[in-house]
C-alpha cells in the first residue's frame, strides 16, 4: 500500500478571550508530506507556543483542523471508511511528551501494551501476546521482569517513555509522531531514546516526525528539518544545511540562543529577542489575514 502522510494548508484556530480578533491561530497554512519510503526522520523545531504540538494532534486525528486537511494515502483522515481508519490508526502512532501523564495511574503499565495488542488484533493467544510484549520490551532495552506488573509510579521517566516505544515497536507503524518525547528525560536517557528511534528507522522502516524545541537532538538525528514560528513553517531542508547556513532570521535566532559548550566562548553578548523577532517578522512573508468569522 502506498502510504503517505500529507498536510495540506492546515490551519488551526482556537477561540481566545482578550484577543482583538477573538481567536488565536496556532497553526497557519502548514503543508508538508511525510513519505514512508524511504524511511526518514523529519524534525519539526520551534519554540514553545509555535504550534508544534497542535500539528501533532492534527496529524494524529485528535484535533480536527479549522481549515485544510490531513491526508493519509491521499484521503482525508476525518473521512475514512472503517477499514481505512483501522489502517490509518495502526500506521500512525504517537510517542507523547509526558511519560508520567501518559499512563492511567489506576492500572499496571502492562495494560498499555495488552490494549494495543487486543485493539489492533495482533494475536488472540495470551502466550503469544506475552511473547510479543517481551520481545518489544527487549527491543527498547528494557528487561520485561523489571517493568511488567508494575504501576506507573514505580518506574522512572525513562523506563516509562521506553514502554511507549515498545508499544510502537509492537505495532510497527509506518509513521511515528513523536511530540517532544525526550524533553522530560535526562541527557543520558535522551541519547538512548534517540538511538532506539534511529534503530526503528533502519530496522523496521519507520518514518518519524520528531517534534522538539531542542536543536541539539535535531542535529543528532539528522535527516530533514522544518523550522516553525508562530504557526508557520519558515524554513525547511536537510539538517546540515539549515544548521550551518540558516536563511531565515528566526532560525538564526534559534541557533544563537544555544550557549556554546566552550569555556573560551563565554555567553556574554546579550541577545535582544524582541529585536530579532521583529526582524524575523519583517522578513516572513506577510500572511494575508482573512478572518473567517
Amino acid at each position, binding site marked *: 500500500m502506498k502510504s503517505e502522510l500529507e498536510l495540506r494548508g492546515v490551519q488551526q484556530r482556537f477561540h481566545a478571550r482578550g484577543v482583538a480578533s477573538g481567536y488565536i491561530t496556532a497553526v497557519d497554512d502548514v503543508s508538508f508530506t511525510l513519505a514512508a519510503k524511504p524511511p526518514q526522520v523529519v524534525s519539526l523545531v520551534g519554540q514553545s507556543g509555535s504550534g508544534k504540538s497542535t500539528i501533532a494532534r492534527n496529524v494524529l*486525528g485528535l484535533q480536527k483542523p479549522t481549515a485544510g486537511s490531513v491526508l493519509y494515502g491521499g484521503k482525508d483522515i476525518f473521512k475514512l471508511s472503517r477499514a481505512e481508519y483501522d489502517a490509518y*490508526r495502526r500506521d500512525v502512532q504517537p510517542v*507523547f511528551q509526558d511519560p508520567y501523564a501518559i499512563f*492511567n495511574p*489506576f492500572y499496571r503499565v502492562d495494560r*498499555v501494551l495488552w490494549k*494495543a495488542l487486543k485493539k*489492533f488484533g495482533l494475536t488472540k493467544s495470551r502466550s503469544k501476546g506475552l511473547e510479543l510484549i517481551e520481545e518489544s520490551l527487549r527491543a527498547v532495552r528494557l528487561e520485561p521482569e523489571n517493568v511488567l506488573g508494575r504501576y506507573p509510579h514505580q518506574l522512572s521517566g525513562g523506563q516509562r517513555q521506553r514502554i511507549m516505544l515498545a508499544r510502537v515497536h509492537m505495532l510497527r507503524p509506518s509513521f511515528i509522531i513523536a511530540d517532544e518525547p525526550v524533553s522530560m528525560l535526562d541527557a543520558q536517557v535522551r541519547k538512548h531514546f534517540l538511538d532506539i528511534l534511529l534503530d526503528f528507522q533502519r530496522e523496521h522502516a519507520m518514518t518519524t516526525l520528531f517534534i522538539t524545541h531542542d536543536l541539539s537532538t535535531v542535529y543528532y538525528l539528522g535527516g530533514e528539518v522544518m523550522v516553525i514560528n508562530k504557526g508557520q513553517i519558515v524554513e525547511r531542508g536537510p539538517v546540515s544545511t539549515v544548521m550551518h547556513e540558516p536563511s531565515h532570521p528566526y532560525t538564526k535566532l534559534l541557533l544563537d540562543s544555544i550557549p556554546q559548550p566552550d569555556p573560551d566562548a563565554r555567553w556574554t553578548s546579550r541577545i535582544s529577542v524582541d529585536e530579532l523577532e521583529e526582524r524575523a517578522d519583517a522578513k516572513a512573508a506577510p500572511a494575508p489575514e482573512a478572518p473567517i468569522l
Partner: protein
Amino acid sequence: MPMRILTAVLRTIRNSPRLAIGLAILLVMVLIAVLSPLIVKGIGGSTDPLELAAYERWLVPGPGHLLGTDQFGRDVLAMVVSALSVSLQIGAIAGVISTVVGVVVAFVAGYKGGWIDGILSTFTGILLVIPTFPLLIALSAYAKNVSLFQVGVMISIFSWPFAAKTIRSQVLSLRSRPYVDLARVTKARDLEIITTELLPNLLPFIGVGFASSALGAIFGLVGLEVIGLGPGGVIDLGQIIFTAISTGALTLGAWPMFVVPIALLTLLFAALNMVNIGLEEVYNPRLRGVAGE
C-alpha cells in the same frame, strides 16, 4: 479488575482512620437495619411490639421496655430499630438515584462539552439554586399517601445536581489527560474511555456524591416528618421525633422517644461525614495530614 478495586479500597481504608471509623459505624447501623425484623420480633416475643395497644401506654423506660412505650402502647425500642431501617432505605434510594443521574449527566456534559455541556450545566445550575425544602413541602402536600420510594425519587430530583456539578469538573480535567489521547489512538470508543479510563479515577468523587445525597435525603425526610408531611404507613426516625414533640412526650417522662432518634441521626451524620472527609483526604493530597502513599 474487581480484585484491583478491592485492594484499592482496602488500602484506602488502612490509610485513613477517619474513613475506617465512619465505615464501621455505618456498617453496624446497616446491620441493625437489615436485622430489624428479627430484632423487633425478639423484643416482642409472641406479641408484635409495633401493634397499637400492644402494651400499656406511656410506660417509662424499664427492664421490660428499655426505652418505654408511646401514646399507643408501642415499644419505643422496636419503633426506633425499624425506623432506622426506613431512614437508611430512603438514604439508599435517593443516594443511588441521584448518584446515577448525577454521574450520567456529569459524564455526558464534561466529556462531550460544547452546547450539550452548556444546556446540561445551565439546567444543573438552575436546580441547584432552587430552594429545595419549600418545594418538597409543596410536593408532599399535594401527593397524599406517597410511598417511600416516591419520596426518595422526589428528594433525589433536588439532590443529583450537587453530585453532577463536582463530578463534571473532574471529568473536564481528566478528559484532556494524555492517557485519554493514547486510548483514542488505540481505537477506544468514547463509552469505553469513559468507563475504563475516567470512571475508576473518579470513584472517590462518586462515593462522596453518594454519601452526601444519602445524607441529604435522610435529613430531608426527617424535616418533612417533623412538620407532619411524610409518606404514609411507615415510621422513620423523623416521625418518632414528630410524635414526641406533638404529644409532649418529654413531659410524660418518655424522653427516649425524643433523644434516641436524634442521637441516632447525629451518629449517622457523623459517620457519613467521616466517610466523606476520609475519602477526600485520601484522594486530595493537599488535605492529607500525614504523608500518605
